[in-house]
């Protein structure tokens, strides 16, 4: 009968409606839950971000000595001194650095090097040469020996001198600024270091250094430079170059200690830095620089 049909239809409609409502409710709730889950997940991720975790760890670790239990980097402020009036250009430092730090033994990769400046009589500008010079390479011979040839021995020389160079471990290093990943950084004791496991080898830092102190190791795909022999200075030793220098040209020490060789050098001499206009504030102090030294 129609009445019954109507009722049936109405019941069916109600059931349908209920089903649709249930479906909609389930649909909406699941979407809402998904949304909430996403929000919660993201929120917790941000709250437990590596940055926050690091803060906590750092606070816990502050009590302990870093980086090693015998060496606390907050207690030192390293600096380097070079008295160019004493340098004899023997290049024992260049060799020692390569041996100590396993640097590529050719004429194109140097953590430290020495430049020779020669003013000939009647000339205003110095002739400059270093280890990549072809005559010096010939004089050095095979086997990663480094040597200056004696091309000026018969010339009339006004004045001439040697200038050792290296990474200046600047206070405001341009190389650290430009590193995209944080592979190179300035330690709290003033040393600028490179994390060879993090470097991606883009060589932006090599470009940014005004002193040409950085280079790229093709075989390892990372950039490298002088580290003031961090593995030695954290054990109370001198960098290898300072250790072998026979004339006392190179000195190293802690600026916090007024008796350290570098503190004494700075106290007793008028010191300069290379390219002060770069704004990098280098920490290698030179005695006896000359107008043409760049």
């Amino acid at each position: 009968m129609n009445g019954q049909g109507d009722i049936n239809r109405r019941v069916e409609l109600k059931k349908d409606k209920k089903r649709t409502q249930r479906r909609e409710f389930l649909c909406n709730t699941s979407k809402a839950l998904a949304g909430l889950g996403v929000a919660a997940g993201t929120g917790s991720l941000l709250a437990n971000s590596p940055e926050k975790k690091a803060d906590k760890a750092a606070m816990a670790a502050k009590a302990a000595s870093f980086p090693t239990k015998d060496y606390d980097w907050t207690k030192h402020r390293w600096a380097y001194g070079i008295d160019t009036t004493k340098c004899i250009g023997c290049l024992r430092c260049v060799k020692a650095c390569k041996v100590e730090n396993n640097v590529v033994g050719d004429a194109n990769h140097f953590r430290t090097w020495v430049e020779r400046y020669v003013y000939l009589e009647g000339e205003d500008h110095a002739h400059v040469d270093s280890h990549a010079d072809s005559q010096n390479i010939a004089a050095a011979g095979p086997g990663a020996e480094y040597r200056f040839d004696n091309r000026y021995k018969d010339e009339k020389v006004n004045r001439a001198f040697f200038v050792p160079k290296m990474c200046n471990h600047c206070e405001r290093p341009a190389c650290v600024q430009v590193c995209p990943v944080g592979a190179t950084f300035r330690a709290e004791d003033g040393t600028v270091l490179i994390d060879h496991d993090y470097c991606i080898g883009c060589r932006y830092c090599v470009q940014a250094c005004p002193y040409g102190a950085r280079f790229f190791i093709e075989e390892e795909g990372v950039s490298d430079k002088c580290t003031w022999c961090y593995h030695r200075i954290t054990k109370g030793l001198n960098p290898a170059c300072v250790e072998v220098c026979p004339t006392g040209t190179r000195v190293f020490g802690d600026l916090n200690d007024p008796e350290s060789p570098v503190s004494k050098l700075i106290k007793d001499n008028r010191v300069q830095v290379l390219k002060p206009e770069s704004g990098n504030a280098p920490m290698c102090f030179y005695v006896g620089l000359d107008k043409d030294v760049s």
Partner: protein
Amino acid sequence: MGFGAFANFMQMIKKLPKHISRLLLLIGLFLVVALVTRSFLIDPSFYQHGHFRADAVPELAAAEPVYKGSGFCIGCHEQRKTDWSAGAHAVVQCEVCHGKYLGCPENGKAMLPVNTIRLCTMCHEAMPARPAQQPQIVLAEHPFPDQEKPECKTCHNPHSPTVEELRESEPVAVVAADTLSEPPAAASKCLKCHGKMGQGRRNNPPLAGLSAEKFTELMNQFKAGLGDSKAMIRYAKTLSDEDIAALARYYESLPAPLPEPPPE
């Protein structure tokens, strides 16, 4: 309040066309995946001390030094303590000439320099840029006993190279030290050119065994400005008669060198 806003938000999402809502879902998913992946991938020690991997610092500090330093070498090579530490080469570290420590003697002996000319001239070849206080020689003008095969070690003890502490060359090695008299003070001027034992060097004639009479005669001639050696004239003029007498006695007492005269 939050739930109301969220409900409104869900309503708005629902009203969007399917492709937009799916697109938004995709973008949202991408961002979530990116953030999750990031937190998994970041090295746990990063950010601890700054924008770098904090573990890198102890790793760098942990490397073993290669150069041991001369103090370490002298620990076993005690005999070096006397001649090296007190001599002019006390500033030259052992590993500079002998190479880095290799674990001697288990891993073989330390390197002994072979070509001394090449090694020594590294520091001592006269070069315009070298400061004057550095002892330097012009190779061609240096008085090597054997000009054909110049060898620094003949006269210079590498561990204490100042000429006063010359190596005693083979020919006079047989003399026992306690039979010799003490050289007079003035002899210090003579030994540079005539040898520590007066055995003569290069063009300079041996004095050992020369009769005191002959010695005095020659010296007086030089002192008067006669003779063909300007240097000797100069030296003789600085000596008093007592000095000459003492030197004459001393050199007469020294054993004459063995038959081989030093080559010219």
